[in-house]
């Protein structure tokens, strides 16, 4: 594949989305990025979506469906925010704590999975229930609120979000593309049985995957909680919501991954979906329409991905 084709394949989706969303905005007499608040909303959305997409993709690409990612974000942010509020800690320390708790919770989830050897979906259901229950019990059902803590809320700035996004991307690329762990991860992904037979320690690799996913969700929990200054409780799988925002960017990332790095693809997928989210905000689209459009985009993109050859043949005949 030529460099030009690679570059085109990598940027075509986000560029198309950028053009289309801007054209729609302009046709309605609205400027997409009118003020700094719009940029902040966009950067925050990219940070949130890309972190969840990275986290979900780690296990999903290996055939492990994980319902518990949202509950890890919830519980890690509950722990870190409580400590930060009670001990007047800085946002950086709260972020570090969130990452630590997220990683530990992910690690625990992974250990349960490799110990009980049940299908990952079942384990993640139990883990999600457990973590939601723990967060509820820990806060006595009231959640955590720090809306008056200016220091923590001031973390919500474009440079900070950009740093988080960049660090997460570099971390993902280094860990999964340039380490022995990453090579083994890919080997297990494409040939589980053969990889185990040649001596790759699947359990260790899997537990590390869960820990990394937890770490990323810890960061997402932090970003999410410092945006609103409060953490609402969720029971009966109320925490699985964030997972759904990662599917479209993940599929877009998978497509872009053919032309360049799949992690970069996930980020560009997150950029594309965040542009669409900003469009909704700028045009004041009601939530029902947003949900329908997002669902149609997901199905439409999947139809394209799963029928690419059919579509190509259709154009070739004519």
């Amino acid at each position, binding site marked *: 594949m030529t460099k030009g084709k690679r570059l085109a394949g990598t940027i075509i989706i986000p560029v198309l989305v950028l053009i289309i969303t801007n054209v729609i905005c302009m046709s309605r007499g609205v400027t997409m990025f009118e003020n700094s608040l719009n940029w902040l909303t966009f950067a925050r959305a990219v940070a949130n979506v890309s972190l969840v997409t990275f986290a979900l993709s780690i296990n999903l690409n*290996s*055939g*492990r469906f994980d319902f518990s990612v949202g509950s890890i974000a919830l519980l890690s942010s509950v722990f870190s925010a409580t400590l930060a509020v009670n001990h007047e800690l800085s946002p950086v320390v709260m972020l570090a704590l969130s990452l630590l708790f997220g990683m530990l919770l992910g690690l625990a989830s992974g250990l*349960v*999975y*490799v110990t*009980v*050897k*049940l*299908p*990952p*979906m*079942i*384990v993640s*259901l*139990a*883990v999600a*229930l*457990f973590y*939601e*229950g*723990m*967060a*509820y*019990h*820990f806060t*006595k*059902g009231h959640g955590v609120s720090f809306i008056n803590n200016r220091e923590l809320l001031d973390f919500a700035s474009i440079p900070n979000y950009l740093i988080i996004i960049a660090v997460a991307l570099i971390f993902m690329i280094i860990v999964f593309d340039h380490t022995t762990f990453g090579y083994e991860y890919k080997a297990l992904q494409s040939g*589980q*049985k053969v990889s*185990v037979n040649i001596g790759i320690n*699947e*359990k260790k690799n*899997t537990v590390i995957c869960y820990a990394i996913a937890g770490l990323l969700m810890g960061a997402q929990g932090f970003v999410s909680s410092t945006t609103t200054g409060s953490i609402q409780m969720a*029971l*009966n*799988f109320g925490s*699985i919501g964030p997972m*759904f925002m990662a*599917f479209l960017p993940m599929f877009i990332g998978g497509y872009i991954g053919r032309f360049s790095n799949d992690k970069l693809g996930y980020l560009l997928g997150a950029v594309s979906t965040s542009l669409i989210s900003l469009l909704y905000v700028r045009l004041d689209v009601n*939530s*029902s*329409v*947003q*949900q*329908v459009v*997002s*669902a*149609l985009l*997901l*199905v439409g993109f*999947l*139809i394209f991905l*799963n*029928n690419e050859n059919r579509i190509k043949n259709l154009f070739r005949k004519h």
Partner: protein
Amino acid sequence: MDNEKIIRREKIKNIIFQVAPVVGLIIMFALFMILAVIKDINIPYSMKNILNQSVIVVVVATGAIFIYTLGSFDISLGANMCVSALIGAMAYNRTNSLLAMLAFCLGTAVLISSVCSILASVFNLPVFVTTIAMLSMLNAGVLMLIGANGTGDIVQVPAAAVSAINTTWFKLLVLVAYLAISIFVFNFLKLGRQEKFVGGNPECARLTGLNNSRLAILGFIMAGIGVGLGAFLTITYAPTLSRNTASSVGMDVIISIVFGGMPVSGGSRSKIYSAVVGALSMTLLSQIMLMLNLNSGISQMVKAIIFILVVYISMSDNRKNILPR
């Protein structure tokens, strides 16, 4: 001789694993009765509550077995039920006919289920992702329907209209009838056997001439009937519908089915009774937590631990040297 011993041991092991969920249910029931006696709780009233809470999940989960047997998974069942119930309620408000309400509940649920499976079959989409997109659309549909009805946040059927069928016997009748049909279709018709084959080995099933897409559509239609009945029973039990109606049903169904001993990968070990055993066990467990005065958080943590333990025991004959996916 040694081989015979091994085979016998394996058979006994298999039986233990198969009856583990039922034993779990019996233990749960015994525990519930003991606590009810100790705490001097009105047992018939509590039993009626348990039935009211579990019957809807049992009906929907029974239908969902037809999807799970194929190794598929539908996360939009709860949202489908909410939309079907809203449309059924609106139909009643226009016609004042309970039959029309039932027909609209069933029709809407089957239509939504069919669209999901047809879309997945025609465009070669992963069923699960299609159901995620459907979930999003249906949630939007719920908001639109409630908005279109012009009553603010709810759609309501007069309680007096459904009071005649809001009885334990009626619910049991619906449940038993649907269970009987499902058991017949699943165990005595080709559909059930073919579904188990596809769930166990889709490629082999395809090579032997089975039409996997057709089976998926039929499975989703059977599930749609369960969802439609669930919607109808929801209106009879709680005739005021809101955006939160049935919001937890989708996940309750998954939990119940798995708790009842059904493998998520589907195939030959799929059983209709898993839905009944699982849903009843989960409801009993919730009641026990209530009786023990545990707060919602602790109660959910205990539920999670018991869930994983029961599933661990009922599936522990299935472990290999590689991790399941």
